[in-house]
């Protein structure tokens, strides 16, 4: 059992949860993730470690409330418990110091991009962050991202924050204006990461992506999270989740991520738990 120390909503559908998890906090590095199981009936769901406090013995995750487990997690109060928490899993991101980096986050991906940007910032890198959201009311972590970046550009799909653009447009504009990046890190929906890679390839800028396939165990024993990288099968949970973006077969990843979308939708309709319940 793992205790929830703190919980707050970052917007209507994104929740930040701080867990009491000293063993994980002691080891966690940027780029790593945890797997949680909310209750006895629950699934094992992976979430990136968005922050950790080694002294307090806590870790922070940020989740979008999209299904059974994330909704039930969001409905828990501070001081309550979830059944299981395991981590840190995956390989830590390999980060270099003293370089110029563009960190691109898409939606919830910003929760994963932020700890990487912070780590790079702390390692003396010059960090520009481009964060994309569907609309103004979905923006998360603006102050946090601002604090660790030299430049923060927030784009919205509908222009409701005054900057209607795709993250790729913003990145392209910076590069065309002569900004020289040593590295691009892109984290968000696979379709966004795919288009960032197609763009950066034109300029030959090394691009790292953090993949989000379906996972069960997260320790390399099932291959549910397998992705094709450079023509070879890799397990994202142990070989990743970070990979060279040019090598990733994004179309395959997108197809595999839809494998159970029918079940999830049906379950949401069936699930009486959330009918008429305002989880916020």
């Amino acid at each position: 059992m793992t205790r929830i120390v703190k919980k707050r909503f970052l917007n209507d559908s994104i929740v930040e949860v701080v867990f009491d998890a000293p063993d994980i906090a002691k080891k966690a590095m940027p780029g790593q993730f945890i797997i949680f199981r909310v209750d006895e009936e629950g699934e094992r769901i992976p979430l990136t470690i968005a922050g950790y406090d080694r002294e307090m013995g806590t870790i922070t995750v940020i989740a979008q409330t999209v299904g059974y487990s994330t909704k039930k997690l969001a409905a828990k109060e501070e001081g309550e418990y979830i059944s299981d928490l395991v981590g840190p899993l995956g390989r830590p991101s390999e980060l270099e110091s003293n370089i110029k980096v563009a960190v691109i986050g898409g939606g919830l991906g910003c929760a994963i991009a932020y700890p990487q940007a912070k780590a790079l910032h702390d390692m003396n890198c010059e960090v520009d962050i481009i964060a994309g959201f569907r609309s103004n009311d979905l923006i998360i972590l603006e102050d946090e991202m601002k604090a660790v970046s030299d430049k923060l550009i927030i784009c919205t799909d509908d222009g409701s924050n005054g900057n209607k653009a795709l993250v790729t447009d913003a990145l392209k504009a910076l590069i065309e204006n002569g900004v020289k990046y040593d590295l691009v890190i892109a984290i968000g929906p696979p379709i966004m990461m795919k288009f960032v890679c197609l763009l950066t390839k034109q300029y030959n800028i090394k691009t790292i992506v953090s993949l989000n396939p379906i996972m069960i165990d997260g320790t390399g024993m099932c291959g549910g999270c397998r992705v094709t990288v450079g023509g070879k099968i890799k397990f994202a949970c142990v070989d990743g989740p970070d990979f060279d973006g040019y090598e990733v077969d994004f179309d395959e990843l997108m197809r595999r991520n839809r494998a159970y979308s029918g079940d999830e939708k049906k379950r949401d309709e069936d699930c009486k738990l959330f009918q008429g319940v305002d989880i916020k």
Partner: protein
Amino acid sequence: MIDKTKKTPMAQLDPVERSKTFGEVALGYTKEEAMQEAARCLQCKNRTCVSGCPVMVQIPEFLKLITEGKFIEAADKIKETNSLPAVCGRVCPQETQCEGKCVRGIKGESVAIGRLERFAADYAAAHSKPTEKKTAPANAKKVAVVGSGPAGLSCAGELAKRGYSVTVFEAFHKSGGVLVYGIPEFRLPKEIVKREIAGLEANGVEIRTNAVIGRTFLVDELFEDGYEAVFIGSGAGLPNFMGIEGEALVGVYSANEYLTRVNLMKAYDNSYVTPIRKSKSVAVIGGGNVAMDAARCAKRLGAENVYIIYRRSEEEMPARREEVEHAKEEGIIFKLLCNPNRFVGNEKGELIAVDCVEMELGEPDASGRRRPVEKADSEFRLDIDTAVIAVGTTPNPLIRSTTEGLDTNKRGCIVVAEGTTKTSRENVFAGGDVVTGAATVILAMGAGRDSAAEIDEMLKAK
């Protein structure tokens, strides 16, 4: 009239009925049946059956106690050398172990030792009082066990008996290893595994779930935390894929993923949330117990057609005889001497068929088995929507890649000194599938038991 040359039959669920539920297939002996069967034992002096058991259960002794109606005493006799008798009685391949050596087997059927072991363990569990929880003395030496599968549990149980303070580290949220995620409910009910593990905990074994060695803690850190010896029993859990076209299509599973979703996450039960593919036609690739388990699970999940695709003939199948028979009774279709060449998908990236080729057996290979070779112009297509790949597993690289100086061989198995469980690292021992590659439950338990004796000897000398 009782035919003394035959085993006393054991009641089983009807094949058609059972292929729709996950309830246990074999129902176990009654008291009378058990006493009748145990009386078939000739109480031989040279006890060949015992030599066939990897943990040397005192077979004639416990069978005699059953004939006398002393069922709890019989279970205690078994437990002297076997920490998980209700499990072993159910899943051991007895035909190649104890029962394979039984003298009765020469002129008829051997004594049903497995069924009787199971009977005694189940009877004792149902009729004896729960024991008070023991804890190791405060000054007891600490030993860490990595993995809560059969090897780890057996090692931990033995060490606790010898007075050590034992902690088992398990990566999953439930302990039992392959007993909980791999072997299905209809062969080994999870309540039985839970009961056996609770027995070990009552004897002082502490189990820490959600602890991944190589990530949450490193082997070297266990020594810093005061553990004086480490036993690695982390198994062979990394699935092999075949490297053929279409393996990333939606609907292609490793057997580990398929079985983990079904057994550990209970995807077959609607009150649990983990999903599994609703299949009409399923092909399972492989001929071992894992393949049989996956195929029989697929049938129970409602698939109409379930195929086993195996590249050799039935004679070479490594699966237990009884499981092959059960699979056939339940309507699994065997495509023998047949090998998949590619998986075929539709425009949405979903599996729709598998292209196979027929095989014939050529000359024996290094393993002594006749090597299958492709028949010319024999390719055919099988329409399927789900494929489960059960062509073997190897040890997970997490521990070897994070533990310096721990020697492994080219298959990724931990190397131990000949005839021992000692690894290349001081005070680090290993046993079970992580050393041998995928093998049997009882061999892993035997290795765990041997290792406990070696650890005890080493720590006493310290």
